[in-house]
């Protein structure tokens, strides 16, 4: 199953909106500064022309030049010039970040499903040692008692790995500034379904998180893109499952990726 029209619309709409937001200060400040510079050039030219006249500057010249200078409203310009330039640079960087994040989205268009063994896939997931440093990650591999029958499932292991990694990265960020806070990741396999639960001890289900869940590229923070949870949702849906976010009983957030073992929407399993 591939992305639906509304999903694609939301994705492109979110990207366009985020790019427009990033470029607004860039375009507006550029235009403002061009006007300011043009005004300054005109002032300098007027000053030069007056000074070069025989007899030099008169009191009337000075008054006219002063009026011309005041009309430029230069006072607010000085202190904010650095800020304007910085905002423009930030807008440019933000645009580049968004475009960089958008470039690989095509590979999420349609997953490539195969039958694979969950236990084996689970054992090869990144561990706390390498790609997820800094925060302790504990795995709870499927207990024999909770596994009914074999552990083979149908799906796209690469997409699923990326989805779980994304949830772990989010959990790591949520707990990064909290000393002693940890992240737990648990896999449970049932007859028809399997679940990955990522629990952290961060601030829980915040409004920003709800926005990020609903709006692609809708991240409020400057250092975030806001596409991660959208991708996890797509992976969940294309595997016949869903993503739920809830405040954890122990505090923090519990993100649960619940998936169908057969991939409800996959008509012809391929191996």
């Amino acid at each position, binding site marked *: 199953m591939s992305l639906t029209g509304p999903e694609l619309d939301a994705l492109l*709409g*979110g990207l*366009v*909106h*985020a*790019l*427009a*937001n990033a*470029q*607004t*200060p*860039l*375009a*507006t*400040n550029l*235009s*403002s500064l061009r*006007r300011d510079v043009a005004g300054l050039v005109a002032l300098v030219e007027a000053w030069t022309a007056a000074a070069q006249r025989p007899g030099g500057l008169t009191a009337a010249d000075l008054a006219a030049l002063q009026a011309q200078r005041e*009309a*430029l*409203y230069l006072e*607010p*310009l000085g202190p*904010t010039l650095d*800020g*304007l330039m910085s*905002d423009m640079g*930030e*807008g440019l960087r933000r645009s580049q970040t968004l475009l960089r994040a958008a470039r690989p989205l095509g590979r999420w268009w349609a997953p490539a499903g195969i039958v694979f063994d969950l236990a084996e896939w689970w054992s090869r997931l990144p561990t706390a040692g390498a790609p997820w440093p800094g925060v302790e990650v504990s795995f709870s591999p499927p207990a024999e008692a909770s596994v009914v029958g074999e552990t083979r499932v149908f799906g796209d292991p690469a997409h699923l790995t990326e989805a779980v990694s994304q949830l772990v990265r989010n959990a790591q960020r949520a707990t990064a500034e909290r000393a002693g806070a940890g992240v737990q990741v648990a896999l449970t396999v049932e007859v028809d379904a399997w679940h990955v639960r990522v629990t952290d001890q961060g601030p829980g289900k915040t*409004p*920003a998180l709800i*926005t990020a869940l609903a*709006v692609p590229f*809708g991240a*409020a923070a400057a250092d975030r893109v806001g596409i991660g949870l959208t991708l996890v949702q797509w992976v969940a849906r294309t595997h016949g499952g869903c993503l739920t976010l809830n405040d954890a009983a122990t505090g923090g957030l519990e993100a649960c990726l619940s998936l169908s073992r057969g991939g409800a929407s996959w008509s012809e399993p391929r191996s």
Partner: protein
Amino acid sequence: MSVAEPWGSIVERAKVLIVDDEPATRGAVAHALRRRFDVLGAGDGDEALALLAAHEVAVVLCDQRLPGLSGEHLVTEIRQRHPDVVRLLVTGHYDDTAFAHAVNHGQIFGFLRKPWNEDELERTIDSAVAWRRLRQENARIGRELEASNERLTRLNAELRHFTHAVAHDLKEPLRTIQAFSQFLTDDLGDRVDEDGAQYLSGIGRCTGHLMLLVDDLLRLSELENVPMRIAETPLDEVFAQVRSLLHSAVEDRGGALRVATSMPVLQGDSGRLVTLFQNLVANGLKFNTAPIPTVEVTACAIDSDCVEIAVRDNGIGIPAEHQTRIFNIFHRLHRRSEYPGTGAGLAIVRKIVEAHRGSVHVDSAEGEGAVFRVRLPLRHTA
């Protein structure tokens, strides 16, 4: 951000509020508009509402995607709390549902797409400010007009009562003067010389004319003061009464009154309609030098709601330049010695027609008679 960002400094300038969660966008707008507007900034709906409560903002520029209250809901809230503030919605990506909500519920003035061109931004805000000033000016003129109307209505009512009272109070002493001058004429008889007889006759003529004037004034004021009695009124019956009232006048002039058969039935005040057509027919006979003064009355439907009654005479006609003024009270085209009367008849006609929500006009040329066309609705509306 919880306080106003004090960009700009001239307090008389229009205040613009930019609501956007991106500080860089707020700063850019403030910088771009600083020469002409005072710009305030808010990062979300709550801050925006707090600033609107504290400042007299002319225009609010509201991003559609905001944390918490969305842009389209914020403009709706602003419309309810501060209807005078002109609202503009801004977005980087057109969302038709949000836009429809903003138009239908927030009644936004316009829509700006990010990233905007600076000229476009300034033009849009200029238009919004101008529109607000125009709306405020309209409201002020409306209030003034309403006050003037009330004052005029009051003065008009006072004038009506005054006219009625004066006419009523004049009548009694006039009648006394008329009676005493008659006593003098009767009692002194031939004991007064020729001059004395002329003076007495002059007093009699003048008081007689004054009585007519007072009667017309009273009739006019009654038209204003006495409520209409609306009922289904067959015009056949109206013209039967007119014929009866003017029987002597027609006979005296050796004239003719011809009324079409099967006249329509309409909702009106039958007494006033009789007065209306009595005046028109009497005028047709009076201002007439034909060997057989003749007045013809016909009716035709204009549409399903309106009928036109034409009163046509073969009289002296009315010059074109006087045709619009003849309905003014006491406006006369001829000397009283030529054609007696007060000049109130057609003013009474117009008042009755207007009270019935109708219209009257005249087609005429000097020496070629006149046609008075009275249009009346078949159903009366208050």
